[in-house]
């Protein structure tokens, strides 16, 4: 294939609230339908309408889906950012320009296609408000013609988005056609970028992590959902509400679930814990600011040993500024959320499929371990569209943990809520409502003995704390293990977690072509499992890649294994944008050179043409 075929990235610069999301989704979907791996990232402001927003579409025949910092095709629709947008395009790049927008002279080595958007949209509708929305379909038509996106695929994608609104569909379709025909009749193609059919997306789905998590929660059997709206978490619960309303009501309309929009995140987690205490599968979802409010209850849940699942779709914090930008800055805070000696299991999904899978596993873990379990996603994973194989139907039943039934309780001479009967640190519990009076107990925070009686005895307190530590050890064997890809010839080991996975895959490939072979470990949960120790021992130099300023995961890794700490380096990205693989590659190369690593011997890339 020619270099420009199925290997480039498009950036659309518009203002938010202008309806461009539909246009961008149609473009993304049409390319996907042509069998070409694609990913879309929405870089949007914290605003409802009127601020600049960018949408990047990466087309990659190699299957790379991380954010590409380089823009090959820039669509300039926002006068306010036009100058910078144009300046961001390098030599050989393409600029599709709304000809109403004034821009400074553009160097000759960029290809400019000026499109008379206004003249094209005017005959389509007289409604000025509609024009503002539908004009975005003009660039869809223009790009389709320029890039060779099949007309039928655009139509199919458009129909999927707007088929339920026939009037809007017709109007948008007209606009696409107008752009298309104009481009066909007036533009000389002078760039190498094209889409050609492949068959790499056959059978695959495109879905955002929040929707995937919502599906996991529903199929995991959630019954109580509590929340307080916050971007980028809201769409998880909103998707869940949609699915539950559709698939979890009985024919008579009655619901076998409850969703409560709480007054704040303190109440949201309080309700989730109350429900968990009384035996429901409960969850809440939030982002950093909400996590901060949940701190006290998180510790309460830990000490009182109450299951609940808490999703944190991370964003840049705190408060105003970059709430709609992505980050992994909550890791350390969430892991030890609350005062006192707390440590929570944290699941770290890296893909939409893991969002789905971990949503189910989080319930099993929370109920098995009788403790709040946190799931750390992020804005990039949660709100952007990712390719995936369709999710498998859960084959395993659920695990409700050590809950004594009425019959089991009757067979026991005594019941003690916090006694470690099995030696795994996990006691047995009963649920309110059990008839047998010996099943009743009183739940408190830190001051209780094995029989849940009040005590402030130093010995008993220390004993309870030691058992909780034992329970955390038990958790190591229950949480999802890391994915490890060893390389016998590598001296460098790379570690990451969450959505960085995709950038890391690509970066490893780049590193290999630069002569640096790497082993790879994708962490999927805290506490760490034994795999980490083996991995650290195996490689000379380790780099932990993450999206926060201080290298929180690197610090946890060093703490876990002090003997290896000196060999654990840290590579961080904290711009609020999804990681660009090149950044990782450059940082590793710089560190490697600084470490005086052996002569670089370029090798072929690892996974040319591999779609994951």
């Amino acid at each position, binding site marked *: 294939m020619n270099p420009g075929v199925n290997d480039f990235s498009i950036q659309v610069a518009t203002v938010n609230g202008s309806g461009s999301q539909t246009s*961008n989704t149609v473009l993304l979907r049409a390319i996907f339908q042509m069998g070409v791996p694609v990913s879309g990232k929405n870089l949007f402001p914290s605003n409802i309408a009127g601020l600049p927003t960018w949408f990047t579409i990466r087309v990659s025949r190699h299957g790379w889906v991380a954010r590409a910092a380089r823009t090959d095709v820039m669509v300039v629709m926002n006068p306010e950012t036009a100058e910078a947008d144009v300046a961001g395009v390098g030599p050989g790049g393409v600029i599709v320009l709304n000809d109403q927008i004034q821009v400074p002279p553009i160097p000759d080595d960029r290809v400019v296609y000026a499109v008379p958007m206004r003249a094209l949209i005017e005959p389509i509708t007289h409604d000025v408000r509609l024009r503002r929305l539908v004009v975005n379909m003009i660039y869809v038509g223009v790009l389709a013609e320029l890039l060779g996106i099949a007309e039928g695929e655009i139509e199919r994608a458009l129909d999927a*988005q707007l088929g339920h609104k026939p009037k809007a569909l017709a109007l948008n379709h007209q606009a696409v056609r107008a752009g298309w025909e104009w481009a066909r009749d007036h533009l000389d193609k002078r760039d190498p970028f094209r889409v050609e059919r492949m068959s790499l997306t056959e059978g695959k789905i495109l879905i955002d992590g929040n929707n995937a998590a919502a599906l996991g929660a529903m199929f995991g059997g959630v019954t*109580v959902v509590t929340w307080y709206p916050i971007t980028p978490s809201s769409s998880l619960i909103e998707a869940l509400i949609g699915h539950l309303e559709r698939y979890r009501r009985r024919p008579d309309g009655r*619901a076998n679930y409850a969703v409560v929009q709480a007054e704040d995140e303190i109440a949201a987690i309080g309700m989730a814990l*109350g*429900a*968990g205490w009384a035996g429901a599968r409960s969850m809440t979802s939030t982002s950093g600011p909400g996590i901060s409010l949940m701190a006290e209850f998180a510790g309460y849940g830990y000490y009182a040993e109450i299951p609940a699942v808490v999703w944190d779709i991370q964003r840049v914090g705190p408060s105003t500024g970059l709430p709609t930008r992505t980050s992994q800055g909550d890791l350390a805070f969430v892991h030890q959320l609350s005062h006192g000696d707390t440590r929570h299991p944290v699941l770290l999904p890296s893909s939409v499929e893991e969002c789905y899978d971990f949503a189910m596993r989080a319930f099993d873990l929370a109920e098995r371990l009788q403790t709040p379990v946190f799931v750390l996603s992020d804005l990039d994973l949660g709100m952007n569209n990712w390719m995936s194989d369709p999710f498998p139907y859960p084959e395993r039943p659920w695990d409700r943990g050590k809950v004594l039934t009425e019959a089991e309780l009757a067979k026991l001479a005594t019941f003690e809520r916090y006694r470690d009967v099995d030696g795994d640190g996990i006691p047995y519990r009963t649920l*309110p*409502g059990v008839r047998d009076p010996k099943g009743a107990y009183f739940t408190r925070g830190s001051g209780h003995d094995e029989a849940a009686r009040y005590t402030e005895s130093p010995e008993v307190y220390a004993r309870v704390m030691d058992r909780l530590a034992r329970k955390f050890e038990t958790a190591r064997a229950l949480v999802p293990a890391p994915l490890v890809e060893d390389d016998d010839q590598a001296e460098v080991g790379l570690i990451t977690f969450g959505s960085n996975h995709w950038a890391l895959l690509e970066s490893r490939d780049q590193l290999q072509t630069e002569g640096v072979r790497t082993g790879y470990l994708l962490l999927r949960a805290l506490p760490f499992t034994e795999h980490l120790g083996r991995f650290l021992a195996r490689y000379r130099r380790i780099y932990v890649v993450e999206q926060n300023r201080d290298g929180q995961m690197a610090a946890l890794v060093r703490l876990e294994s002090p003997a290896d700490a000196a060999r654990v380096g840290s590579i961080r990205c904290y711009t609020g944008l999804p990681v660009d693989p090149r950044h990782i590659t450059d940082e590793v190369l710089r560190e490697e050179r600084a470490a005086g690593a052996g002569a670089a011997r370029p090798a072929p890339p690892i996974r040319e043409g591999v779609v994951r």
Partner: protein
Amino acid sequence: MSGTAAEGPRNLAGFTKADYEGGKTTLCPGCGHNAITGGIIQAAFEAGLEPHRVAKLSGIGCSSKTPAYFLGHAHGCNAVHGRMPSVATGVHLANRELLLIGVSGDGDTASIGLGQFCHLVRRNVPVVYIIENNGVYGLTKGQFSATADVGSTMKNGRPNALMPIDCCAIAIELGCGFVARSFSGDQKQLRPLLKAAFAHRGTAVLDVVSPCVTFADHEGSTKSYAAVKQSDTPLHEIDFVPYFEDIHVDYAPGTTREVELPDGSHIVLKKLAEDYDPTSRARALMTLEEARTERRLVTGLLYVEPEKPAFDRDLGLVDTPLARLPLEQVRPPRRVLEEIMEGFRTGRGQVAAEGGG
């Protein structure tokens, strides 16, 4: 019908009074909260509650410790400061067969927990919500709470200058269907109010003035035993007739008002100085306002609206408690997942959205 081998008469449910007792109190002798605990034990016994169908909830404070001292055969959850309402809401969502008894303090409810209290009431979550109101933070040694009256003094003589928050007025304002005020020293009034609250379906707020003998029983405190005895102005005398009993006392015609609760039990209010109508919100709020300006403590059933729909009705839940639903009912079949996956393959399952904050 279970119960221990304890002595004494058995109630309708087959339990003796001992079945409603709990651990030994650790509060100060003479603390008003202990008297309320006694009232709850007696009222629960008389009402024939089945202990295992009760869940006790509380926040933090001396008052919030008391659920450990009654109904030892019921599960209990002593949560965090001011947040019992959210925990109670969650428990109710999981299992609405449970009768929830929530015990809180004035600091727990009116200071740190005011928001959660308001939202519990607004949702009308079925909880018997007892505020043990002493005007101070007992457990942190006597600081003012948000219910302290203007001019009331701390033990060191410092007066409170801020307007008190009246939890009953707020509850009525927010549409609560059962609002009462009482005094820990008036068991004759407290017990029937508690039993009526047990029978009410929806949030039932009982603000019970409960002197703190250690930090607020001095001269200058408006919530000392002496001050309350002096200012207490009952609106009516109260009898509670449970659904399983007939109204057997003959009341002189025109001297009582009766309120029927959905379970068939009756609240009988005997008129005192004036004929108080507890079904009028406006009247209730006016009465509270008058009492405030006259520095009186009005006690009794301030407001009742038995038919107000409770939270679970709003949610349209199935009858089985959510906590007990089997997997088959909460995991949709394979074909549903396939249908959804197809939607994400074609794009029909997902329509674009943007913006936020």
